């Protein structure tokens, strides 16, 4: 098990280094930082001086090492568009995105798993077919359309919920949270539902498929033959064995939640990292793009590691056998 974890850590390190390399190449070759910092009428001497000051005259490996060193300290330089420190910009926006993603993940899991189990157990009934059809729509509908439809229904027509921004937030030592105010919760509802729909539908379909598969196996028949009550067969035996693929997909989807948050944040003007990133892409603001890229890659790598470790907790077989690679 230790060897497995070490190998995974090494892989994670390779991924992070390659992402850092891409980010560094972005800095290096996309746009000229000197030109963008000095403007058009700088003298050649000024350019050379700034080059030396920024360390751009050093050899390539030295520059890359410097970049990684700075990135490890969270220093990605100044945003080209706003002229502020990228780290400050991101720190400001991070709480909004994390709160939104966590809320969406909770909704997706809390609704998706029970509905999936239900659809598997009541297979063929009208209610489960409705659940399956709706979930197919959930997988096919693009996120931004779901958001627009929700806004149209709840904000424009029914005027029940706000559709813009985070509402009132409370600052807890630099972390602004919307969880502590009624207004913040109200503002969270529509974006969180929008963000969760795709994952919810995916989890529902996955749990259903896995449950159906497991319910056919012999040990379920044996459990029934032993006279165990349905509840314990379904939830103690069947559901537990469906969890490995569910954890994998959910873990990977947690990263996807952050990516999809870009869309949701644009639709609802939610002041998170996604909105920051999309503005950076529109204006080719390289430092912000690079920092966002590194941060998201880090979140991904950490989540994937946690998912791998969770396998051991859920599936005792893996503690002895070597886990199969790939899918």
């Amino acid at each position, binding site marked *: 098990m230790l060897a497995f974890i070490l190998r995974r850590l090494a892989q994670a390190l390779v*991924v992070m280094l*390659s992402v850092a390399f891409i980010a560094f190449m*972005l800095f290096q070759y*996309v*746009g000229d930082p000197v030109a963008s910092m000095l403007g058009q009428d700088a003298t050649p001497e000024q350019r050379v001086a700034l080059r030396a000051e920024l360390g751009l005259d050093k050899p390539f490996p030295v520059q890359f090492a410097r970049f990684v060193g700075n990135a490890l300290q969270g220093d990605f330089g100044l945003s080209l568009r706003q002229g502020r420190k990228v780290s400050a910009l991101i720190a400001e926006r991070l709480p909004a995105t994390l709160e939104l993603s966590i809320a969406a993940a909770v909704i997706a899991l809390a609704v998706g798993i029970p509905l999936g189990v239900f659809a598997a157990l009541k297979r063929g009934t009208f209610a489960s077919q409705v659940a399956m059809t709706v979930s197919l*729509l959930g997988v*096919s*509908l*693009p*996120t*931004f*359309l779901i958001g*627009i*439809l929700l*806004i*149209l229904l709840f*904000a*424009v027509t029914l005027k029940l919920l706000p559709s813009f921004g985070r509402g009132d937030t409370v600052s807890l030592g630099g972390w602004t949270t919307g969880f502590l105010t009624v207004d913040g919760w109200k503002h969270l509802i529509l974006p969180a539902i929008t963000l969760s729909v795709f994952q919810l539908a995916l989890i529902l379909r996955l749990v259903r498929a896995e449950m159906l598969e497991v319910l056919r196996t012999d040990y379920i028949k044996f459990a029934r033959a032993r006279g165990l009550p349905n509840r314990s067969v379904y939830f103690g035996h069947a559901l537990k064995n469906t969890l490995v693929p569910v954890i994998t997909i959910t873990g*990977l989807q947690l*990263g*996807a939640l952050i*990516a*999809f948050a*870009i*869309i949701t944040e*644009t*639709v609802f003007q939610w002041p998170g990292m996604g909105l920051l*990133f*999309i503005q*950076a*892409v*529109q204006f*080719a603001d*390289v430092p912000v*793009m690079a920092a966002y*890229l590194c941060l*998201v*890659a880090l979140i*991904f*790598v950490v989540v*994937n590691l946690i998912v791998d470790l969770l396998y051991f907790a859920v599936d005792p077989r893996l503690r002895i056998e070597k886990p199969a690679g790939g899918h």
Partner: protein
Amino acid sequence: MNTTAIKAPGALARFFDGDVWHSFKSSPMAITAAVIAAVCVFCAIFANWVAPHNPFDLAAVNLSDSRLPPAWIEGGSRTYLLGTDDQGRDILSAIMYGARISLFVGVASVLVSMVVGVGLGLLSGFAGGKVDALIMRVCDVMLSFPSLLVALLIDGIGRAIFPNAHDTLAFGVLIVAISLTGWVQYARTVRGSTLVERNREYVQAARVIGVKPSRIMFKHVLPNVMGPVLVLATIHVAAAILTEATLSFLGVGVPPTSPSLGTLIRIGNDFLFSGEWWITIFPGAMLILIALSVNLLGDWLRDALNPRLR
């Protein structure tokens, strides 16, 4: 009876006699999806002739007709069946022209990623060793990020490299961005089937009689691994159209001079609160219609081509 009927049946005749066609005929879902998809594609391709107005002809657009509701709502006009947008453009026509751009970008991206993915997959499965390991590691890294993020990133890099990009270049960057995120699935699928096919007797026979490896790869192995690729491509078209719509909705997709469905939705989004819902909802409905029908077709094709399910 014609004498040609005695000859070996042509590809078309074999298709209509084959399992795939029979399975198609017996699936109402597949027929419905195919009809809807065909109508959408027809309207998109022949938008110039089918559309009642030309939304990009500035002379024909009248600002006094702007923000008209659909024909069946009070204040709507029969000339503009689905209403008009803020510049007086006919929504129905804009949807047809927009669908053409969406379909073009979607299909082009799928073709590019198919060529790249199938090529690398074949190479990976056939060559093995270090080449295989390298390609598969790249795939792993690509797969660990959501495609939307990768597409956004490539798009952003493209924008930074060509700050004053011409419209055609913007299309190119967009297609590259979407296809570079899609090739991985093809590569993995093709590699898997190639590994199986590589050890089949017909490949060994070809080797024995001295056929060049590249010829074995493309002439013998490739046709045998294309089945799953076609299924993947069908479903991928829907995904690519949705990715394009998403990027355009985010404002980093097709240039605004040639609006796709995503761009139309983005434009309409600004008018949601003033009550002009039709500017957004109809392009959105068209997008869903295309994506859903293509997805259903892909699902059906997957089942039809899967011998285990027969």
